[in-house]
């Protein structure tokens, strides 16, 4: 039989979120979040401030418990897993927190090497070398690796957080606003690093960003969150021709449009 070029078999999603709902008290934040992320794909979540983008990532990580809905990783439902199984799932995931969330009782390089030393039991000297290399990739010198996180600028902390997220070569990486607080050049370098993680290492990435230029560089697909729902999900090329007035207003940063802003207009 001759081999013919066939369309790739439709793979099952790496991350599948179905109708995820989450409220804090009476405040409904996620109201039916639906998203599939394919293996090796880079998906960007956009949406107004406070619409629940960070909350959606925390639900996948098990840091918050959704009120209802289903989340699967590699086809395995992860809500209601035991602590141990949950840890096994989280070991596949790297996360950059919006505020970096570095451990301030240990040095920068120990932060980056955290999974290697604590999780994989690697020798400290070897882990240190890897940490310094990852720091180099985000544009930080070895001298900075020896410092305490409290001595770094906001943008530097963000980059250390990014180095920590990718240090364990995770399967799945979440970036919560990776380029916020960075200068445009450094932002571009970080975007390239994210793309490299996805293209070369084969990781699956889910990124939150407000930076449209960055989104265009790193995303395969984009989803827009509005009032707790994904109102639009499509390939990045369609971003400007979405035909969706909400997306149009958001992407172009227009003050006038259908999006409800809790600002008194006069």
């Amino acid at each position, binding site marked *: 039989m001759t081999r013919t070029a066939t369309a790739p078999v439709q793979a099952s999603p790496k991350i599948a979120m179905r109708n995820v709902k989450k409220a804090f008290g009476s405040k409904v934040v996620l109201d039916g979040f639906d998203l599939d992320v394919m293996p090796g794909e880079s998906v960007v979540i956009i949406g107004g401030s406070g619409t629940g983008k960070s909350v959606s990532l925390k639900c996948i*990580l098990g*840091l918050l418990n959704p009120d209802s809905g289903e989340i699967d990783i590699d086809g395995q439902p992860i809500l209601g897993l035991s602590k141990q199984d949950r*840890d096994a799932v*989280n070991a596949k995931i790297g*996360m950059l927190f919006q*505020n970096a969330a*570095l*451990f301030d009782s240990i040095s920068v390089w120990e932060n980056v090497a*955290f999974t290697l030393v*604590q999780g994989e039991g690697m020798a400290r000297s070897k882990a240190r070398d890897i940490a310094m290399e990852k720091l180099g990739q985000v544009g930080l010198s070895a001298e900075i690796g020896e410092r305490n996180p409290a001595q770094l600028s906001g943008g530097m902390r963000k980059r250390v957080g990014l180095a920590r997220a990718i240090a364990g070569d995770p399967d799945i990486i979440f970036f919560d606003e990776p380029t916020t607080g960075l200068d445009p050049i450094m932002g571009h370098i970080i975007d390239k690093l994210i793309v490299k993680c996805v293209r070369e290492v084969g990781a699956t990435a889910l990124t939150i960003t407000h930076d449209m230029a960055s989104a265009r560089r790193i995303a395969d697909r984009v989803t827009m969150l509005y009032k707790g729902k994904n109102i639009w999900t499509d390939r990045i090329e369609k971003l400007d021709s979405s035909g969706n007035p909400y997306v149009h207003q958001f992407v172009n940063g227009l003050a006038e449009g259908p999006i409800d802003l809790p600002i008194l207009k006069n």
Partner: protein
Amino acid sequence: MNPLRPLGAAFLNFLEAAGRLTLFALNGLSHCFRPPFYPRLIGRQMIDIGYYSLPVVGLTTLFAGMVLALQSYTGFARFSAEGAIPNVVVLSLTRELGPVLAGLMIAGRIGAAMAAEIGTMRVTEQIDALETLSTNPFKYLVAPRLIAGTTMMPLLVLIGDVIGVFGGYLVSVYKLGFNQITYIQNTWNFLEFQDVFSGLVKAAVFGLLVALMGCYHGYNSRGGAQGVGTATTNAVVSASILILIANYMITELFFAQ
């Protein structure tokens, strides 16, 4: 409205808090005995609690011993029982004042620091980050502190006992004109193993309580700097109260016939 309602609500709240604390304690303690262990972290806590608290505990027990000698002298002189001073000093110190004073000082020094550190880690999402890095916060943060608190406090109290007895000796010999040899002999002769031992058991329990309160309130703190402040206060106050309650119960256990 039923006047009993707030009372019932308060009672239910209390039960809920007690239940949550018990679960927290059991969870934390169980991780003290299950690998992986973090010797580096345990060591750091031990140095913090054991070594850096020495000056505070030493000073406290030194003056406690001194004032005990002075007070019992002015009291006992009325019925010519000054000879009992060495016994009073050593018994009060080893059984009660050593562990309780050290416990209260440690609650202020260590309990507050633990609550503030863990609380800050909570509100800056560092604890969330720990979980995403597949590290159990109970193992990484709580267990080392419980271990260090429970093991270091008896050592601290033992040293404090010695320093306190020395304080009583100083005052008795140099101010009240006691004979040096007789004072030391009297101190030794009346001291029983159980006196010191009960004090050390108390110390271990107090150390555990302080670490537990610091971790519990820090771990459950919410809402920024103010939340961390509240957690710190709660840790110190609850640890101090629990120390005094536990002190009575352990005394009852050891000495009530």
